[in-house]
């Protein structure tokens, strides 16, 4: 359902007032990548697969989507069927918007928070205890690990509903 994904992506960006023309701007691309990672974590599944890259969770598929959109005209969009979101999906998008307003201008924060979330929930670890996870976060994100307090990050992610911790 790739066409649907493109239309949904564009519609969500419009709702969040995000400019998808991000080819020349690494920061914009990073924000897009991380926001859609968080969107899926909140429960709106666009079937976009993420892997762990140099700057944390990253989806090559999502890159293809926004590079494709950049080459489309309004006339092209007229071809496509309309998509709509359920009330539950709109609530998720609304929640993402709140996070975007709070974190959106801070790419370090987005990179570190999503990296911690990825390592916690998506990376296969032999040992799931907190200290081991802390070591792995430090291994892959040494610069940002010094900048942020790991325990506070976990607490923030818990408050926002991304993590269910005791």
């Amino acid at each position, binding site marked *: 359902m790739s*066409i649907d994904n493109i239309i949904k992506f564009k519609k969500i960006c419009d709702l969040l007032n995000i400019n998808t023309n991000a080819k*020349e701007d690494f920061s914009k691309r990073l924000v897009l990548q991380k926001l859609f990672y968080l969107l899926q974590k909140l429960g709106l599944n666009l079937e976009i697969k993420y892997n762990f890259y*140099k*700057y944390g969770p990253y989806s090559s598929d999502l890159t*293809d989507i926004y*590079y*494709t959109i950049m080459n489309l005209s309004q006339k092209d969009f007229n071809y496509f069927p309309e998509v709509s979101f359920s009330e539950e999906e709109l609530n998720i998008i609304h929640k993402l918007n709140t996070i975007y307003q709070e974190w959106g201008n801070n790419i370090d924060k987005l990179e570190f928070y999503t990296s911690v979330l990825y390592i916690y929930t998506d990376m*296969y670890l*032999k040992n799931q205890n907190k200290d081991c996870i802390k070591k*792995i976060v430090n291994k892959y994100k040494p610069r940002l690990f010094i900048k942020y307090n790991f325990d506070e990050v976990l607490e923030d992610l818990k408050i926002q509903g991304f993590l269910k911790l005791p």
Partner: protein
Amino acid sequence: MYRKLNDPIFGLIELNKIESIIVDTPLFQRLRYVKQLALANYIYPSANHDRFSHSLGVFFLTNRICETLDKKNNHILDPINVKNLRMAALLHDLGHSPFSHALEFYKKDDFDTQKFPFFFKIPHEEFSTYLIKNSYIKDILDEHGYEVNLICNLIEGNEIEDLILSRIINWELDSDRLDYILRDSYFTGVGFGNINYHYLLNSFKCYNNKRIVIDSKAIRDIEHFIISRFSLHDRVYTHKTGSYFTYMLTYSAYYTILNEYFPSFRNKTELDDIISTQENSKKIFEFSDFYLINKLYKIYNDLKTSNNEENLKLSRIFEAVIFRKKNFKIIKYSLFTSKSEYETDILKFKIKSLLKSLIDMYPFEIFVHTPKNVFTKYLSSKISPLNSNNESYEKFKEEEEQTIWIQEKNKTPEIFYRSNETFFRKIHEFGITKVLVYINKDNKDLLKKFENLQSKIKDIIFKQ
């Protein structure tokens, strides 16, 4: 070693006792009846190799890469992890549908699969891990100290703690791709892909414990690998007539699955019962090429004798698959481009919109098909090779991790596509997108109407 198997590409492939037990299970033996290249043998008569031999090949190459990295980087890999990686390589295609990618419906947006069994709607890697986790294979692995979760994460390409391990089977130059290039080239006889894999693999090493790099002396071998992959895509995987037969196979299988002629098990309860014991799992052989062809043949005979005009038209599609009948005219448009998969989907969507009235008026008689061009997906706009200024490097830095890195002696590694010594610096964005239209040869009225729309189709394709 417990068992040695002879392979025409790699010679002897050695298995330990547990690997041998896994290979002998009905779940694994089924792969003998899943052709690697679906109906490519309709074009290349000897392309009859299967997922069974491919799985063994990936297993062999994975082991070889592990040995090389371990030797060069002073036992960098944990032996327990290597044991699990070998098993992941062996089992990575366990969940492939009959005729491999031809029946992988989860990405085929032309087909409404809502009523399909769940295993047709997920990637084959995911079905592989479903079969492992829910069958007696899990019991065998648990009993012998394997980590089932680690194996499944490696198969699905999810990240694991040890990124080097993950890259060995999930990377631009991984053991899976290397095996299919060597094997497909050998069995089709096209001649591309005669890669010196001994030299290439011997050039692998680890850098900073997080990335595989290749000795810069192997630049020509890397080029050979990439060119071979492109050539195979053009000449075999997206071959004009081969794509037609594959599409007809997909269409006839779609009809067969939708109408519940195939497979006999459809929900998780039925499947779980089949895969619960080795004896029960013999029934999994119904999920194979020969069984599906048998079903197609029966349906073809029913359609052919039904005296219903629509059924007769539909029977032509089955006839194409079963008897290699080229009863549709194939119109091909090739576009020199670097389009992504999504851009190609949009192109198809536009052409289908233009042809909608014909498609509605003549069901089963006109189809639009855009075979996947993987080459562009990996090499298109992602890594900027030219204009070596910092700005263009910055543009694509997220993707760097997944691409090929080379290293000259002990210097800092660099991205292969940016090296001064490779011609890929110049032809980096090369790719071909193909649009194929299949039309009932005998319907002159339809052919004429299509002819009148040709210029508009060309406008959509070439004047974007």
